[in-house]
């Protein structure tokens, strides 16, 4: 195997094996698809955000030439974003941070246990951890909607244990329900990458820590935790990105204006007629806000691909 790199460079210098267009040809359909159906739609969003509105029908009139762009809607929405929507944005941030923190604690414990102490049951554990990927998000939310109803099983259990005197309506805008729903919805996406990383940690590092006199707790804090920092960061980004665009968890488990999140603003703008520019501007805000975590995650993914 070691001799091959030299041969490869010689063949490349000759360059007779593959026509120039050969490998680009493979990538061509996918590249064209993404240019036409990913980049161009986004350009339409920008054109609508910087465009105007038909005075009669209130439908957006996109402006495709950047030199004619107007920033009327951008300013208008910025005014809302810094005023009326501030509460929604803060709430979104609080919910997402809370849900992500809870996710991380549970996910790390589970991933750590399965990676280190899974033993013979590792296959079973993995199958059970992967199962949520094959159960639709909707079904997982639906089952909680049913459990949390006033006459549902959760209230049955609570009144049976005499914890609450009368049934609680969990689905009427309770922040706890929404945060729990977010944790429940996204935690599988965190456990699997964490497990994948923790499973690859060389056991000898931990043994060295123990041999040098650290107890299990300090071995964890000084060895395992620093080693898994990249995986923690990546998995945090994996779950926070979709949470910021999430409106469905909230709509299914609460639907009350008391728990509105940023995703709901987007969805409401889409459902109301003649609000194209609003939706487009909100999309731009969200993309700009999420740009740094998105770029971070893309860089990490590309790096992981190269290092494999």
């Amino acid at each position: 195997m070691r001799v091959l790199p030299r041969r490869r460079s010689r063949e490349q210098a000759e360059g007779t094996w593959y026509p120039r267009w050969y490998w680009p040809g493979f990538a061509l359909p996918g590249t064209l698809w993404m240019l036409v159906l990913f980049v161009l739609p986004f350009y339409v969003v920008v054109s609508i955000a910087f465009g105007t509105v038909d005075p009669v029908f209130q439908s957006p009139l996109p402006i495709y030439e950047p030199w004619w762009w107007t920033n009327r809607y951008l300013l208008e929405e910025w005014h809302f974003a810094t005023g009326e929507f501030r509460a929604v944005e803060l709430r979104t941030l609080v919910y997402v941070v809370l849900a992500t923190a809870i996710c991380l604690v549970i996910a790390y414990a589970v991933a750590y246990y399965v990676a280190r102490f899974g033993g013979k049951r590792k296959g079973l554990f993995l199958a059970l951890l992967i199962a949520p990927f094959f159960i639709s998000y909707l079904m997982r939310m639906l089952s909680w909607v049913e459990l949390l109803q006033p006459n549902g099983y959760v209230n049955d259990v609570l009144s049976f244990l005499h914890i609450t005197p009368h049934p609680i309506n969990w689905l009427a805008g309770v922040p706890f329900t929404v945060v729990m729903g977010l944790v429940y919805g996204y935690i599988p996406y965190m456990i699997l990458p964490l497990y994948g990383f923790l499973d690859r940690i060389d056991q000898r590092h931990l043994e060295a820590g123990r041999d040098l006199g650290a107890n299990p707790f300090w071995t964890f804090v000084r060895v395992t935790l620093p080693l898994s920092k990249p995986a923690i960061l990546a998995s945090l980004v994996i779950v926070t990105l979709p949470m910021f665009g999430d409106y469905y968890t909230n709509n299914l488990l609460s639907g009350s204006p008391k728990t509105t999140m940023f995703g709901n603003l987007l969805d409401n703008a889409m459902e109301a007629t003649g609000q194209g520019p609003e939706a487009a501007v909100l999309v731009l805000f969200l993309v700009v806000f999420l740009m740094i975590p998105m770029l971070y995650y893309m860089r990490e993914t590309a790096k992981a691909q190269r290092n494999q």
Partner: protein
Amino acid sequence: MSETVSERPPVERRKEGAAPRAPSASTRTPLGWWRNPWRKPYILGAVTWMYLAWSLLPVLIAIAISFSAGRSNAAWQGFSTQWWWGHPKSDPTGALFVSPELHAALIQSLRLSFLTMFIAVPIGVAFAIGISRWRGPAPAGANFLMLFSFVIPEIIIGISMFLFFTYLLKFVHLGTGAQLLSLVTYQVSYPVIIVRARMLSIGREYEEAATDLGASPTQAVRRVLLPLLYPAILVSFVLVFADTIDDFITVRYLSGGSSTEPLSVKIYNYSRGTLTPAINAAATFLLFSTLVIAVIGVFLYRRITRGQRGQTQEMAGHLT
């Protein structure tokens, strides 16, 4: 003598999952138990099992309710299949396979998932092969686009597709065509990421050996590279199917009418209003069809990787 032994546990390499040592005097008290570094990780184990129960029990209850005999979706009221196939005595119009609305949605779900799977995976696989071998700055840019579509929140794709088909590409009417185009756009990055990872772990040596032995570039790809990629391609097929049949975010904005709404969108719409166990049956059907595809996938995976060890772990490796 025995005191010192219990104070200082012998330095001994503990094997993974090995049984705890016989309890010495200090481990009998709660504090001693807590301090014993060789005790089994009972707390972590409890957390894991509790998590698994929390994660999967609600879904099992929801599946059970789809076989309930009552109208309530909050409690199980005896076994019946009336919410699947209807029941002659009760009102059968709401059952999954009987209601014209749900039945049409079911067909639409399957049609969209299969079409998306068979369009997105070949494009993605070819793209992954192309950018892994093509040198220069262009493939990095194309890969950047792919990864971008992977990390962006799905609602953004849904909204931009809706605006695109409504204001620019007006000849694509909202409905199956628009749904399909946006589903493929959102899903194509899965096969790219999975297959590219596999390409990088395979390396170029096998193809070079093939071309050295006289194979043409196309033969090298078809006879050597593709068979090596089959496991990754298979995992892509299953994942794309599972993700598409559950998708309702992009599709909901692009339905253009209730006749092209797939089952997932129907479930979402009903979940906010009146729920009957028929919706549970619909969700269970989605789960069941995903499982069928996954089982076929596992079966084919085992056939392809016959004789290799650690299959389950490797298959999970594709997912992480």
